């Protein structure tokens, strides 16, 4: 980055992130395990056994909403990993999220179309599937692609970006431009992904009707398990030796290079892992909301992800999840009560969040405890 020496005269605190992760004495495994078990038992019971109208009943709407927010939580966790632990603020994670969603959407489209072509293709008078639709009638292939395609895009882009040591604000802007360009591309009918309308009208997933309560419970639980798995994986990564070097690169890249590390591989791994995680989150998101279109790649979506991380607290793993759940919960309430003021509220979160909560919600608790 053509960095300008930032304000070295002012007595500002250093980067508002907690110190590099230390191997912890206290393990989170038992707590996480118990929580997971409770959710795995309670949710199906509340949704399927408890009768409708009972206060403990989980409606389909609530299931979808929770599942959606859990997917956002995974995306936020992925972004939190690169931003909080390697200092890369990506404004392109909506692209990875949408790519995963598109990959899984292709599976759902082919499943609902049966042996024929998806409806939008006959509409565009195509006679056969484009080559890149090959294999998407297979569930496993679609899930694999939902992780590999975003990973591959991230790998190519990240290699060129990190190799020339693009970082900071520069990198953010370029990832945003990349997302913007991809959005323009997906808006075109010729690209072969349904253009403006994207994919919708899904009927079944693995043969199960997609709108059934049991399917929705399964999807929501999958999202939850993905979130737990992703959290544990990220935790393992940041607590490992590799994670320590990554944090060192974040705090002083040049110095770490002098010590003898090459930052490229370290950054690239975190970046690609994060993109793949984000792609999987997108893949689970699409069957729950029932639609994927290029609007998912709008620059504002990426930036919203960043604000979840900033509000929750960057430099932690639980922070981004808290931020995603909190901001999206607020969004759901706000858009239901006073829709026209939501953008004002969101703007206010953007402005006031970094001003008042420099360490996020998590930072607030830490300070209290200290």
């Amino acid at each position, binding site marked *: *980055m*053509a*960095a*300008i*020496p*930032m*304000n*070295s*005269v*002012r007595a*500002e605190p250093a*980067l*508002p992130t907690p110190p590099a992760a230390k191997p912890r004495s206290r393990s989170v495994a038992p707590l996480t395990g118990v929580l997971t078990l409770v959710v795995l038992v309670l949710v199906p019971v509340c949704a399927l056994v408890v009768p409708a109208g009972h206060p403990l009943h989980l409606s389909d709407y609530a299931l979808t909403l929770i599942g959606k927010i859990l997917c956002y939580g995974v995306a936020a966790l992925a972004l939190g990993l690169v*931003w909080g632990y390697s200092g890369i*603020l990506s404004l392109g994670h909506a692209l990875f999220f949408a790519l995963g969603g598109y990959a899984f959407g292709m599976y759902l489209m082919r499943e609902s179309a049966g042996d024929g072509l998806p409806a939008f293709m006959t509409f565009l008078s195509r006679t056969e599937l484009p080559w890149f639709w090959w294999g998407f009638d297979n569930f496993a292939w679609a899930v694999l692609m939902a992780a590999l395609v975003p990973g591959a895009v991230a790998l190519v*882009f990240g290699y*060129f*970006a990190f*190799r*020339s*040591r*693009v970082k*900071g*604000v*520069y990198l*953010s*802007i*370029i990832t*945003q*431009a*990349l997302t*913007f*360009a991809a959005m*323009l*591309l997906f*808006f*075109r009918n010729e690209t072969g992904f349904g253009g403006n309308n994207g994919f919708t009208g899904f009927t079944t997933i693995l043969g199960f009707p997609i709108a059934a309560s049991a399917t929705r419970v399964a999807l929501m639980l999958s999202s939850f398990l993905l979130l737990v798995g992703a959290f544990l994986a990220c935790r393992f990564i940041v607590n490992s030796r590799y994670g320590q070097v990554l944090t060192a690169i974040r705090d002083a890249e*040049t110095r770490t290079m002098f010590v003898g590390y090459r930052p490229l591989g370290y950054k690239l791994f975190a970046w690609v892992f994060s993109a793949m995680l984000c792609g999987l989150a997108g893949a689970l998101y699409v069957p729950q909301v029932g639609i994927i279109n290029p609007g998912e790649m709008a*620059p504002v979506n990426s*930036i919203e992800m*960043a*604000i979840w991380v*900033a509000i929750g607290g960057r430099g932690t793993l639980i922070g981004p999840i808290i931020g995603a759940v909190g901001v999206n919960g607020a969004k759901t309430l706000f858009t239901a009560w006073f829709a026209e003021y939501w*953008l*004002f509220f*969101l*703007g*206010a*979160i*953007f*402005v006031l*969040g*970094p*001003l008042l909560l*420099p360490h996020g919600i998590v930072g607030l608790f830490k300070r209290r405890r200290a």
Partner: protein
Amino acid sequence: MESGLRPQPGRGPFSPEHRLKTCLNHARQLCLRLLMLVLLTGIMTPALAMEDGILTALAGRDFAAKSQAVSQLIEAVATGDAQARELVLSLATNDVPNVRLNNILRQRIGAAASVLALESPDRAARAQAVQALLSSPPPAVLVPIVEAAIAREQDAHLQERLALLTALMGLQAADAGQRRDAVQRVAETGDPQYRTRLLDLLERNPDGSWVEPDESVRQATTEGIASLDAADRRARQVGTVFAGISLGSVLLLAALGLAITYGLIGVINMAHGEFLMIGAYATFVVQNLFRQYAPEAFDWYPLAAVPAAFLAAALVGVVLERLVLRHLYGRPLETLLTTFGVSLLLMQSIRMLFGAQNVEVMNPSWMSGGLTLMPGLLLPWNRLAIILFALIVVAIAWLVLNHTRLGLFVRAVTQNRGMAACAGVPTHRVDTQAFAFGAGIAGLGGCALSQIGNVGPDLGQAYIIDSFMVVVLGGVGQLAGTIVGAFGLGILSKTIEPFWGAVLAKIAVLLLIILFIQKRPQGLFALKGRSVEA
């Protein structure tokens, strides 16, 4: 004489007399050629019989006969026959009862009438006639009349157009030499709209023979078309470069302020696009005030809109810097998010104040129309005005940055904030002033944009990413870099667009920039020195 020209009542097209008359006409037409000769030698015989015959033929239903009659009439006009002239004029105004002409014949009569209109003393009438004739040239026999008109014509522009007209008419001349000459003259105009006229000469008749019998004329036509095509390509190239410069000037106005503030605080201000929007809306308000209180001075509203746009955007800039950014210095990524939130707030406020719809900003009358640089290439005045405006703004920015105390401070703080502070530069005040200056320049850009595009709450969003790209390309804190980046990006996009379309061009440009920063991570014009790598 007048009564002789008019068909007598009772001689309808279906009457037996009429049939007889048409038969007789055929006999008479043989005499016509003789009469023509007589006329040509200057013996002015009152050709009552001939006119009568033409009129009768025109009143008939036989298209071939009618067509021939029109040809005769036009030949008669060419010789200066006063009766024929009158007849043409009255036919052209549909003033002759019983005569029905189809479109082809009416067009030919109309062309002849337009040729006669070239003798009008009124310049506007002559100009209109030339315009009509150029789009459908009359037959070559009328060339002498047009040449006489050229000799009379005082207006150089009309004279030129008339000369072109004779060239177009000459394409149908009887003499091959004249035709060849005409082809060359048409080709010399370089105007692609005459290409089809030349192409017609290379057609074949249904029986396989050439429409144009003369080999050398065909040769000249082929060359003429090639030269027209070359001229067309040149016009397109110049047009592309102009479109690129025009886009570049807009990008320059959008990116200039961004480069200054980025250089200073190290953060790309995501709300920068909204400063453009504020400038455009300020222009809208000023325009409305002028329309309401000073409609007679409406043409000069930009004079008031320019400072208003600057001040409005600068004011919002000061507020933003003082209230928000000041507290986030040293945390660039969070500042990025915050400025994005500010952009959301500003857009939503504008939606509430002015509505979500686009508002209409009128061009002042002197900005409508354009400059015809070469045939087939019109440069709109509003775009030319914006290019000039952008250059003036750059000149002002250069003066401020290089020849004022503020500019000196801004450059010092951009290069090394700590050292500047040690040397006594009031960095806080410089930040505010420079931020206001950058925002104000964006406001000026918005004022310019309002003259060529839609003004709506989303105005800034359309330009913000391109402006970032300019800054990335040009490097930070360098005026020259921004200028080269803006015009380079503008011309590059417009060059790719005709081949790949706007969307793929945007993607291609983006990929090129990503590749470019592999080589020059600091942009085209990097700051040098130890301060670069912080």
